[in-house]
């Protein structure tokens, strides 16, 4: 395998892409690591084109200028959605942009492994392949939690819980490529927390003005479950004047809203597994995705599963890149003969 890499390194660039609902990242064999928020925006008219100065904008850039853009978040709910052509176009733009960020040499061949939310994979396999194939010489599509598991070497007797924005994907690894029964998707994830938080805040502070984007930032900054000692106060304008608001309880309630489904599905998946190996799996539960950053979630889950026997839950070190790193590893390990026909 070393040999192959050595001779392939020169003219082949391996990339691993994590195509997420909220953030997409790329890891390449030339050691580039980049990420963008999965937003794509096209200027609404020629005036806005003048203002933003680019034909298409991405991520934070697009969000900042969103008032003059047609903004698209193509993978909402983990599926390529709505105005079909537009979202397919947007997925394409994201991929193209990501690969450009990896700075391939002009004559380098690009071999890509793309991790996508497990639900997307079911019906949109071809669409995603189509979107990527223009920019890569050869590519493979895998499910997101599987890429994470592969990257962390958790090939056997482990459970990966990938809490993304659109979906939470669970995947049991038992030494083979996970079949459909080994994977499960629930729809309560980051976006759901945003919605809950938004409605709780509107309820509590009907006079204050905030939007979904602000709410998302609150969540990303302060999210927690169970207890924390500090207060959470944020500035929100009321009648144009910035006023401090206490949002601790709302953040807690919103974050905890995903827990019941999560615990239930986790136990259900473990219970379905061969009883002899259940203990091993329980000692090998890994939280990935943006949701793993919620403070206290790991402890909560470990506690909740306690009544089913001892268990050990860990979080991935780098949720942003764990998917793309795993995909990259997969790409590099893949024997050359497998790449060719694809």
């Amino acid at each position, binding site marked *: 395998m070393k040999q192959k890499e050595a001779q392939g390194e020169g003219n082949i660039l391996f990339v691993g892409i994590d195509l997420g609902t909220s953030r997409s990242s790329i890891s390449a064999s030339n050691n580039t690591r980049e990420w963008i928020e999965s937003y794509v925006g096209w200027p609404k008219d020629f005036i806005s084109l003048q203002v933003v100065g680019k034909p298409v904008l991405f991520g934070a850039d697009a969000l900042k200028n969103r008032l003059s853009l047609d903004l698209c978040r193509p993978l909402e709910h983990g599926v*390529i959605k709505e105005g*079909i052509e537009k979202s*397919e176009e947007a997925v394409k733009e994201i991929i193209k942009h990501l690969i450009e960020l990896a700075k391939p040499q002009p004559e380098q061949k690009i071999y890509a492994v793309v991790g996508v939310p497990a639900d997307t994979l*079911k*019906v*949109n*396999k*071809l*669409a995603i*392949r189509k979107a990527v194939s223009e920019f890569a010489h050869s590519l*493979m*599509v*895998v499910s997101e939690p599987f890429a994470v598991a*592969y990257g*962390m*070497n*958790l*090939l*056997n*007797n482990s459970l990966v819980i990938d809490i993304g924005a659109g979906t939470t994907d669970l995947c049991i690894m038992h*030494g*083979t*490529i996970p079949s*459909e029964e080994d994977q499960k*998707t*629930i*729809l309560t994830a980051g976006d759901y927390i945003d919605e809950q938080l938004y409605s709780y805040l509107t309820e509590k502070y009907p006079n204050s003005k905030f939007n979904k984007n602000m709410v998302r930032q609150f969540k990303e900054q302060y999210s927690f479950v169970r207890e924390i000692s500090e207060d959470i106060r944020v500035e929100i304008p009321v009648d144009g004047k910035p006023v401090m608001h206490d949002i601790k309880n709302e953040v807690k309630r919103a974050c905890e809203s995903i827990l019941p489904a999560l615990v239930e599905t986790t136990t259900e998946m473990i219970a379905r597994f061969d009883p002899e190996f259940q203990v*091993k799996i329980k*000692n*090998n539960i890994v939280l990935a995705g943006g949701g793993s950053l919620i403070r206290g979630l790991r402890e909560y889950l470990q506690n909740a599963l306690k009544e089913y026997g001892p268990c050990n839950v860990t979080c991935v070190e780098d949720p942003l890149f764990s998917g793309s790193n795993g995909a990259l590893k*997969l790409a590099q*390990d*893949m*024997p050359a003969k*497998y790449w060719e*026909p*694809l």
Partner: protein
Amino acid sequence: MLFMIPKKREIRVRKAILRGVYEDNLRIIGKNPVILAGRAPIFFKKMFLFFSITLLSILVNGNYLNLPLFPEKQTTASLITQRPSSLPAEKPVKPSDYAAFLGGKEMPLSRMFGLEVKTIMIDPGHGGSDSGTTGTMGTKEKDITLDIAKKLRERLRKYGRYNILITREQDTTLPLNQRVELARSSRADIFISIHLNYLPSKPINIIETYYFGPSADDKTLRLAEQENAGSHYGLSDFKEIIGKIGETLKLQESKEFAASIQKNLFLNSKKQNANVYNFGVKRAPFIVLLGVDVPAVLAEVSCLSNREEEIELNTESHRENIARYLEAGILDYLNKGEVSYEAKRSSGRR
């Protein structure tokens, strides 16, 4: 990573996984992984043999992908032309009945009494542990039906006039009796169940729509058996439900509804793909249709056994199109009464 078994074993596992990923992706693009079983010399010979046979069959039979092998093409064609004449075999429906129902001077029940249809229940077939049928590329019926159902719901929601319900939101197992219960308890006004056909022996694409009724057709009965499996209804329940057949009004309405769905589905699909056959509106004892008290139909919107169709079904736009046709069918039924539609129908069909 408590897991430090000898390295060799890990490498083997890794290899198997890589291979699995590769085969999975081959399947996505529609190549058969079995052919690529390794072992170069035999492999190439096999390849050569395979291609020469393929070539031969193309030369002999024309289009290979469609597989309308000549003799078979004729049988299917004649099958279709025979269809109207085979229909009277289902005794109670006489041609005159058909004419009456196709000519359709009657308005739908809802219109007649000035009632409004408020709640539409969409039922994506199968789900969870019950995958329905599976195509050669691994496309599952349950996923496609769910996606189409969701798209249909979005489309109908835009009108704002209807309350749209869906029996399952996710990939969950839902026995038929629960679907029926849902439709009853939510007081749905009309009910549409979405399914995909699978014809292992015939490489054609057909569209058909069912409403509840006894059937004399063997194939239909088998299909009903298949779709009824896992209903969780006992025989006594079934008898009781069957007693309700007397509700002829519901039957009449369902028939009308089915005709509207079938017409819109078929005529529009035909525009996209000339190779689709119209198997018409049929009656069959599907439990899911019987249990529901309101007009209910089961639409087999496409055919997963057809390779080309499976590829199409994997595209977003095709599923959106099917949802659009269903939407048109539903609205047509709800807003019917205009003569123009009827005129077109009696001359245009079959």
